[in-house]
């Protein structure tokens, strides 16, 4: 026992006591889970996911409107809407809308299937973003064409950090 520890003890404190007090001050959640960043999907994984959706058909720009905030403080919940310019008739309608990301652990976010009975080709949801990245919305039309729009979203705090708070 050195002099310093003896001095602390004389003030009613031990090193162990101080350490335990410090641990107790941490939020409960922080002690339960550690953050392990999973292997992120890569832009190549997103391209592969797009190929699976389109079957290799070209993606055309236009007709799709991706509504997503350019900056998000919290990646745990990012509002996202996709609207496609389409008359939604039996002859000309949107068959599916897909949303994919570039850096999330897995590229796919959601895929919806609709038809003329939808009346309007617009969906809204909330997604998790692990990092600042590009989000792409793809529409599959009844004539076999695919249309897309991308947006870059800056994420201040990624979804994977939720338990560090």
């Amino acid at each position, binding site marked *: 026992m050195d002099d310093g520890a003896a001095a602390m003890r004389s003030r009613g404190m031990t090193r162990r006591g101080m350490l335990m007090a410090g641990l107790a001050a941490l939020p409960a959640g922080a002690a339960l889970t550690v953050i392990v960043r*999973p292997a992120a999907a890569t832009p190549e994984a997103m391209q592969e996911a797009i190929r699976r959706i389109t079957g290799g058909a070209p993606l055309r720009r236009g007709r799709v409107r991706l509504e997503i905030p350019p900056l998000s403080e919290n990646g745990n919940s990012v509002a996202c809407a996709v609207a496609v310019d389409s008359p939604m008739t039996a002859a000309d309608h949107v068959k599916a809308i897909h949303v994919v990301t570039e850096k999330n652990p897995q590229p796919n976010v959601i895929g919806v299937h609709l038809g*003329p009975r939808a009346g309007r*080709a617009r969906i809204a949801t909330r*997604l*998790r973003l692990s990092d600042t990245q590009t989000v792409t919305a793809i529409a599959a039309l009844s004539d076999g064409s695919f249309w897309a729009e991308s947006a870059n979203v800056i994420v201040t705090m990624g979804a994977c950090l939720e*338990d560090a708070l």
Partner: protein
Amino acid sequence: MTAQALIHFPKKARRGEVIEIRTMISHPMETGFRRTQQGEPIPRNIITAFVCRYNDVEVFRADLFPALTANPFLAFHTVAAESGTLTFTWTGDDGFRAEERAKIEVG
């Protein structure tokens, strides 16, 4: 496991009117990419599919992935074709299944 679902749409509509349906269901949407402090992977537990039927005809279907938030929210549209029942079904990992029904009056 019982999940609480919230469903919003106009209960009365004109024939042919396009209505918006907004849904939300209580569910953790555990991604399967997280680990405990001991390093054990936390198993994936998500809703994988959502279907909306209008008088037993499927009008909307969605495939869900871990990148959707906990308590997933989904809004979409349908044409108010006739009076009847809208059925909403969510299915997912570990045999998760929730179903809600709601009436619509079309004049």
